[in-house]
């Protein structure tokens, strides 16, 4: 500045019109150079504007796509919640089956696991939010740095303005303006870099969302398979319920039949009791009869013994008779012999002995008849003896038989006594049986009642299972819808990825252009430095620049405020996330308590419960995934909003750039005109105004 002042003073002390003309021409040439550079800057800035507009359009389409994704996610959420409510309805139905539904414990355990997973997911989202908060703080810091830098520039500019108070206002303004352009260009470049990084982040996030969407689609597929399996299981359970109802009905019929049978058994038992008592009295009578027969056998034995004695006596008498008969026989034989000898003698005597022969014949006949009679008597006696002997033998046999009979009768009596004892025992047992049968009859009635209530219960179970079956059908339908929505989400996310790649390309070209601008601006600054050394007429420009800088500072303040507001919002999100985590943990604790209480639940319908658990788990996972998607979408929306605002900032800065360049062009045009006027004055003989109009 001092040099410029000296140069002005020098011009005042020794004015040389030729050198002034030369200098004016040089200034004109420089001004033309500046004008060319400014034109280039103008073109670059315009191109940048167009590019930014394109970026804005694409960002809007991205935002629209994100909104669509959010809507889809909400509809998924709604479908999932519908599924969840269906599952809850079914769970309520299963709870309606009261303690018979088994596996509730493990289901709650798995639910707790799912909640733990959900908690972990929330924590990861919270971590993401924290990360985002850090990023926002970094943004705020950089903005603050930028603001302070702007303030520093403002201070510099003010001091510049103060020091170039006396120099050419337009030049100073121009220089300051160019510097501000340069600074803005740097900011622009930084903002472009930041935008690019944000876009990269967004792209990565979109990729993540794409992966999550695919994961979600897979889970939904699994979910629908599980639900179909569950539907089949429920149908089989329904069939089983019907079978149980049939079986219970059969059991009821059997119970009634059993009761009847018990009744008839009771009748039989009382009849058996009466019969056993009659048998007992008859057995006692039989015992008395056996005693009588034993006595009779004893008497028979005595009689036998007596008859044997009589027979022996008779045999002895028969022997006497036999000896008498032998004597008679001997007499008969002798008589025969005598008559035979008499016949011989008579035959010898001839006719004289004829009469004697007849007598002898008669005697011999008598003797023969005697012999024959004695022979008959002998035969009779012999037969009599044989009969007596037989009678003796038979009576001995009879005695033996009587003894045997006695022994047998004694054995029979003992047996009868045993029978009597057994019969008495039987009477007692039959009485017990009758009493037991009576108890059985009462128990049978109780069984019939219980079976009837079982029939009712099984009918209720079959009804509940039918309701479950219809609920499962509606769940299957909801799952199909969900599947369709998930496919659409996947498609939309893929489109988003494509759009974000386009944005990245645009941002890269924007960065490139920003670099070009910075290069051009740097060249401009160098040229401006040369200009500053030449003239103090830029003072006014410096003042404008100072104003512009202060405007910038205000803008920076606003940005800082916005950034801190963003930080607060992010902080709120983080706190909400932390609260959510706490709530999830409380939920997990509550579920743990429920699981402890449900440990006592029964173990029936395990298959159904397991399937229910899988459904609930899958639904929870679906909901979780959908929530993640929704979170990611929100993050996307925020990122997109940030990008939009940053792009708007860039656009504003660029706009200001353009304005600055316009002013530079205006200043340059003025400069050129003045230089031309100066040249004209100089060329006019001896110049009219010795101090010129360099100071404007």
């Amino acid at each position, binding site marked *: 500045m001092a040099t410029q002042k000296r140069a002005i003073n020098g011009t005042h002390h020794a004015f040389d019109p030729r050198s002034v003309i030369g200098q004016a021409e040089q200034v004109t040439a420089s001004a033309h150079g500046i004008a060319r550079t400014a034109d280039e800057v103008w073109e670059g800035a315009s191109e940048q504007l167009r590019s930014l507009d394109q970026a804005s359009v694409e960002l809007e389409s991205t935002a629209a796509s994100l909104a669509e994704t959010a809507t889809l996610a909400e509809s998924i959420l709604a479908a999932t919640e519908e599924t969840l409510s269906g599952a809850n309805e079914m769970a309520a139905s299963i709870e309606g089956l009261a303690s018979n539904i088994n596996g509730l414990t493990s289901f709650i355990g798995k639910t707790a696991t799912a909640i733990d997973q959900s908690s972990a997911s929330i924590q990861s989202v919270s971590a993401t939010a924290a990360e985002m908060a850090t990023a926002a703080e970094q943004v705020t810091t950089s903005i603050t740095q930028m603001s302070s830098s702007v303030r520093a520039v403002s201070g510099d500019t003010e001091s510049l303005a103060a020091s170039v108070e006396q120099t050419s206002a337009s030049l100073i303004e121009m220089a300051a303006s160019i510097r501000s352009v340069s600074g803005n260009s740097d900011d622009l470049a930084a903002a472009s870099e930041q935008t690019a990084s944000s876009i990269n982040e967004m792209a990565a996030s979109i990729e993540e969302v794409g992966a999550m969407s695919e994961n979600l689609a897979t889970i939904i597929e699994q979910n629908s398979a599980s639900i179909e399996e569950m539907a089949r299981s429920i149908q089989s359970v329904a069939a089983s319920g019907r079978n149980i109802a049939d079986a219970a009905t059969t059991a009821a019929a059997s119970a009634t039949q059993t009761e009847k049978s018990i009744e008839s058994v009771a009748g039989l038992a009382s009849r058996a009791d009466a019969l056993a008592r009659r048998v007992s009295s008859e057995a006692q009578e039989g015992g008395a009869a056996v005693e009588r027969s034993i006595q009779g056998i004893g008497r028979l034995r005595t009689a036998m013994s007596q008859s044997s004695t009589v027979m022996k006596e008779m045999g002895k008498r028969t022997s006497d008779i036999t000896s008498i008969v032998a004597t008679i026989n001997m007499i008969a034989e*002798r008589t025969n*012999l005598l008559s035979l000898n008499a*016949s*011989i003698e008579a*035959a010898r005597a001839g006719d004289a002995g004829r009469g004697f022969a007849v007598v*002898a014949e008669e005697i011999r006949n008598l003797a023969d008849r005697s012999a024959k009679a004695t022979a008959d008597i002998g035969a009779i006696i012999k037969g009599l003896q044989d009969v007596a002997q037989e009678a003796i033998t038979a009576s001995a046999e009879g005695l033996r038989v009587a003894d045997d009979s006695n022994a047998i009768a004694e054995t029979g009596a003992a047996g009868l006594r045993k029978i009597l004892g057994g019969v008495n025992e039987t009477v007692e047992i039959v009485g017990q049986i009758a009493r037991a049968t009576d108890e059985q009859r009462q128990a049978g009635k109780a069984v019939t009642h219980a079976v009837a209530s079982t029939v009712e219960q099984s009918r209720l179970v079959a009804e509940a299972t039918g309701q479950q079956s219809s609920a499962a059908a509606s769940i299957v339908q909801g799952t199909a819808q969900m599947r369709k929505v998930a496919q659409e989400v996947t498609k939309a996310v893929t489109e988003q990825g494509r759009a974000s790649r386009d944005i990245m390309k645009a941002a890269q070209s924007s960065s490139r252009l920003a670099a070009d601008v910075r290069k051009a601006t740097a060249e401009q600054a160098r040229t401006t430095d040369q200009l500053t050394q030449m003239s103090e007429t830029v003072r006014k420009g410096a003042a404008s620049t100072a104003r512009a800088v202060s405007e910038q500072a205000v803008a920076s303040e606003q940005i800082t405020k916005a950034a801190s507001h963003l930080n607060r919002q992010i902080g709120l999100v983080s706190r909400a996330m932390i609260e959510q985590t706490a709530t999830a943990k409380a939920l997990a604790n509550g579920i743990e308590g429920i699981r402890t209480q449900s440990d006592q639940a029964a173990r029936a319908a395990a298959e159904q419960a397991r399937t229910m658990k899988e459904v609930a788990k899958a639904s929870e996972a679906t909901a979780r995934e959908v929530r993640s998607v929704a979170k990611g979408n929100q993050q996307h929306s925020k990122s997109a909003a940030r990008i939009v605002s940053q792009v708007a900032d860039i656009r504003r800065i660029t706009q200001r750039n353009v304005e600055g360049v316009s002013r530079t062009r205006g200043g340059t045009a003025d400069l050129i005109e003045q230089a031309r006027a100066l040249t004209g004055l100089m060329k006019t003989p001896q110049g009219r105004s010795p101090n010129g109009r360099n100071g404007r």
Partner: protein
Amino acid sequence: MTTDNYILFTVAGTSYALPSQDVAHVEMVDQVTRVPNAPAFVDGVVFSRGQVVPAINMRARFGFERAALDVSSRLLVVQSKGRSVGLLVDSCREFMNVPQSSIHPPGEALSGLSAQYVDGMASVGNRLIVVLSLERLLGSTEHAVATRPREQASGEGHGYTETRN
């Protein structure tokens, strides 16, 4: 000269007949006194009506087994050529008139030794009776006795008679 009167006796179940004029008398037999060196069919001697007679066992004589004496056993004392001989038989109870017309010759079937002392076969009622010839019976007996070694010196066929005489 011979009449039709016969004495009937039994030996070993068979009825035999001897003419009544050949029989002196019939008596019961209590015991037979055995004598040394008697022929095989002679049981011994018996004392009868004041004289000692030899007792010929007809069972042994006819080739049958001997039997013990009992109440119906008889001794027939026969007279032949002035000699008395006792015949021991199983029984003897009948005096019978047998007409000559009912006696048939023994026929060619009964040849040999038995034919020597059989006169014929008589059929009375349904009984078949062997009619004996005492002469020939005793003759063959004497011959058998004569063949005995002890009696050689007495000359054959007349040993018994000579002893009797």
